[in-house]
């Protein structure tokens, strides 16, 4: 899922300072699961902002997903009463809402961090950069593009210490994890062979599937 964290309250207050009527909208997918923009967080933020200054009206809203017009449409009516929408979605959701309502002020309440997992309660780790050319099959399910601090593809740098990455002692060296994974599977030979060089996709990315386009039309 996509992991995000809430912005500083001060920053949020600064963003909404020009507005009197603000609608906070949470997202029922990733943001709920990573406890950044679900119903609980929407309620808490609303509470924190409500008492902030006189004349400010804060209302709560929630849709199952902010990255799909199908659900964003549900905001259509409600939104008319508000000057600004404070979106508790990931950056994708914020943009989807902003695109759908170009005449409204749409503001991000969260800082979108990465695609990752909850490793243990309160700890999230980035797992994938959506690089478009997945190599997990060669690396025992550990992504060096993302989890090696240098994104190395042909084995580790010389910087690991006691299995930890050179950038931080509390971060495992991805290459040691790959090594252990491949060894367990009897596939250490995967580390040898052709030199890997990454091709970088053009951003912004775009996927076009003609067969689906045709169906729609």
């Amino acid at each position: 899922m996509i992991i995000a964290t809430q912005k500083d309250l001060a920053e949020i207050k600064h963003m909404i300072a020009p507005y009197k009527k603000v609608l906070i909208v949470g997202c029922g997918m990733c943001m709920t699961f990573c406890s950044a923009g679900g119903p609980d967080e929407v309620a808490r933020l609303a509470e924190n902002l409500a008492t902030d200054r006189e004349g400010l009206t804060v209302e709560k809203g929630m849709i199952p997903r902010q990255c799909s017009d199908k659900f964003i449409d549900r905001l259509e009516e409600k939104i008319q009463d508000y000057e600004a929408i404070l979106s508790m979605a990931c950056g994708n959701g914020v943009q989807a809402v902003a695109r759908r309502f170009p005449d409204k002020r749409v503001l991000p309440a969260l800082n979108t961090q990465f695609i990752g997992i909850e490793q243990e309660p309160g700890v999230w780790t980035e797992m994938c950069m959506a690089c478009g050319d997945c190599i997990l099959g060669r690396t025992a399910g550990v992504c060096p593009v993302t989890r090696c601090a240098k994104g190395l593809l042909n084995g580790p740098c010389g910087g690991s210490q006691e299995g930890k990455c050179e950038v931080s002692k509390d971060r495992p060296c991805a290459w040691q994890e790959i090594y252990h994974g491949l060894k367990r599977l009897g596939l250490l030979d995967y580390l040898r062979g052709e030199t890997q060089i990454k091709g970088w996709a053009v951003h912004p990315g775009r996927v076009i599937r003609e067969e689906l386009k045709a169906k729609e039309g």
Partner: protein
Amino acid sequence: MSFRQALESDKFLVTAEIGPGKGTDTGVLLEDASILKDRVDAINVTDMQSSVMRLGSLAVCHLLTDMGIDPVLQVTCRDRNRLALQADLLSAWVLGIRNVLALTGDHPTLGDHPQAKPVFDLDSVSLLEVIGKLNGGADMVGNELKGATDFLPGAVVNPGADTEAALDLQIIKMEKKMEAGARFFQTQAIYDLDLFAKFMRRVEGYKTKILGGVILLKSAGMARFMNKNVAGVFVPEYLIKEMTETKDKAKTSIEIAARLVKGMKDLCQGVHIMAIGWEKRVPHVLDEAEL
């Protein structure tokens, strides 16, 4: 004799290293280089070592060639993408630089510009492959070059990797570097010759030259610092004791280094001395090691 000729002979190789400083003052740096000049086969010039912004390796290597010294251009993948790396390599060639050491490079977070965007578009293995392609007269995507390079490519290996996994990985990667064209290896600093001998047995028969790394120990504190903070460097307790108890740190430091150099004569094909500021003492080490 050029470094390449020395490498192709049976000579026990000696290389040293200088690190450009922060700024345009090259006085001490070039003075150190001239002290080393007649005692070593080549001098490495580091590429913003420890990710600290400094005077560039390419320019300094060029100054060394003007002094009649054969430099080894250290190139890291930290700061340049594949376009810039290739351009810099071509530039190095036209400036008379003939040897390249391909390195991944430290992460920028370890240096003095921790917010810098790390590049790592290539890594040490793919960089070696690219050097091979430039030598063959084409860029990395196969476009023909008007005028090729003929670099002598080298790489590094860390024989002291601290876990079994890390050491296996070092050796697998060393093999990949050889396949990618590395003709010589300089190692991380070695203080324990038994450990190094063990490593050398593991890579026995590899068709490459290995230059054992020697860092001059300046103090016991430095040894402890390296044990704690430098990956793959292990200074045994008896050496730390020697440095603690001595009345003449410089003398003892030279003795220890000379002992290590002597020990390596039977183990590998050369030494790579990293004096980190004590370049003036390198000739004493070599005298004492009878080189």
